[in-house]
């Protein structure tokens, strides 16, 4: 666990040593503001809540999180530092977890920096702050799921661009798997049980409840399981591919 913490610290400060974290935070804040106000109509709705703000998070994460995750393992493999890391007395699991937590912390920080929005709705009206906190937690969990997919894809390829594209495509499938667009495509030849399973993989469905302030065990559990599964998949990928 101690090793995870050391790697966490290294990765976290590396995000700020390179401009990655600053760029990410700035763009996240600008875009989330633009979406919430201009497209979501946060003011015009005349309701004291942040639902328009949270509703756009899956779409923001879809591009921003893979961009953040893409270098994590690709860079290690490209520069050869993975050989150093893997021959230090550190297990791959500890390294993976440290890297994941560091990036997740940056995501958490970006989310936390949207606090002026929360202050605004509190100034303008009387929102249910419990709902807002729950939605923040939900959004962060979902960001973690995107991130885990991104890390796994980053382990797949030495090229950051390939890692990015793979991650965006996969994330896109997960976001949309509950939508009619995807389900219609499979309806013809998948049995209903599998179709339901596919639909239940959707990030959107699980997040929508949380954006409304309902933190149910099944939604929280879903995202935690997605995180765990993809991190494990990434771990296996690294074991397989580290030598290439």
């Amino acid at each position, binding site marked *: 666990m101690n*090793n995870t913490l*050391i*790697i966490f*610290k*290294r990765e976290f*400060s*590396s995000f700020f*040593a*390179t401009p990655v974290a600053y760029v990410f935070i700035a763009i996240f804040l600008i875009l989330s503001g633009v979406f919430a106000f201009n497209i979501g109509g946060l003011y015009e709705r005349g309701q004291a809540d942040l639902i328009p703000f949270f509703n756009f998070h899956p779409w923001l994460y879809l591009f921003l999180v893979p961009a953040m995750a893409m270098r994590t393992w690709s860079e290690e493999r490209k*520069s*050869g*530092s*993975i*050989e*150093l890391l*893997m*021959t*230090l*007395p*550190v*297990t791959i699991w500890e390294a993976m977890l440290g890297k994941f937590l560091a990036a997740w912390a940056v995501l958490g920080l970006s989310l936390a920096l949207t606090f002026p929005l929360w202050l605004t709705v509190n100034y303008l009206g009387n929102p249910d702050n419990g709902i807002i906190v729950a939605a923040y937690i939900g959004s962060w969990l979902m960001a973690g799921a995107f991130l885990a997919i991104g890390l796994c894809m980053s382990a797949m390829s030495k090229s950051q661009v390939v890692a990015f594209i793979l991650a965006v495509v996969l994330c896109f499938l997960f976001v949309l798997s509950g939508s009619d667009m995807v389900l219609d495509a499979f309806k013809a030849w998948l049995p209903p049980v599998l179709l339901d399973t596919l639909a239940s993989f959707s990030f959107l469905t699980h997040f929508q409840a949380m954006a409304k302030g309902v933190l149910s065990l099944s939604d929280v559990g879903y995202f935690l399981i997605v995180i765990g599964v993809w991190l494990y998949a990434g771990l296996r990928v690294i074991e397989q591919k*580290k*030598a290439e």
Partner: protein
Amino acid sequence: MISVKNLSMSFGDFKAVDNLSFDIKPGDIVGFLGPNGAGKSTTMKMLTGFLNPTAGEIRIFEMPMPESATAIQKQIGYLPEGAPAYGDMTPLQFLNFIAEIRGLKGENKKQRIKEVIEQVELGDMLDRPIENLSKGFKRRVGLAQAIIHDPDILILDEPTDGLDPNQKHQVRELIQNLSKDKIVIISTHILEEVSAVCNRAMIIAGGKMLFDASPEELVKRSKYYKAVGIHFSKLADISGLAELEGVAEMEVDSQSGKVTLFPDKDVDLLPVVADYIQQRNLPVDTLYTEQGRMDDVFRMMTTEGAL
């Protein structure tokens, strides 16, 4: 103590390492020699637990690799080929990171970092990002991280590659100054390096072990070992030299005019040749015994299969 038995590693159809077996004791400074792609780096990667062998057994301090990887890795310092590091960190941050992973803490950590910085002479470069450093300094950072925890086993993959002669000398001194009960394995293309720092030479080619003995033994395999070189100041009749007792062969370099006499096995030619020269009063300006040419043996051994 490193004990390797029937170690093999294949990448698809390609056998990078083929049935290697050897033991290395504390105090051994082993030079891994071999052409590019001979399997030196792959062997090192298996010893350090980066790659898992496809067959064979590695035991280090009685522990099996890769099963006890973490416990073994604690006792190994490793400089991978090309000295990779995290480019966005400064050497100081990087060494601090490695020291923490190596379990060094507090004063002890500071002390060790200070010591290795002095040992590899990183002095002025501590606060620049590693990616901006020259090749030589990057290599020094890599060396520093490998020795920071004073490991019992030090594995260095081409530690002097890309360094200038002064830096090479420094690295060799560094290796020689390590305490005598450690295991050091270095891979290199530079043969003189092996005779300079190693007490054991292993030649690997095509994944197979071709030679494993002291560098002196290696030199003895050379055709030139104890050969006598003569250079004449003016033209002289040398026909008699080849007929001397103990001379197996004579070679004359038509360009430089240098004459080389190769001895029969275990014959000391120099006194015989010196006597002959004195008797005939030959106009010799240089007379010396060759030490044997490593590159000669190396070439002979590693190209045998190809010929």
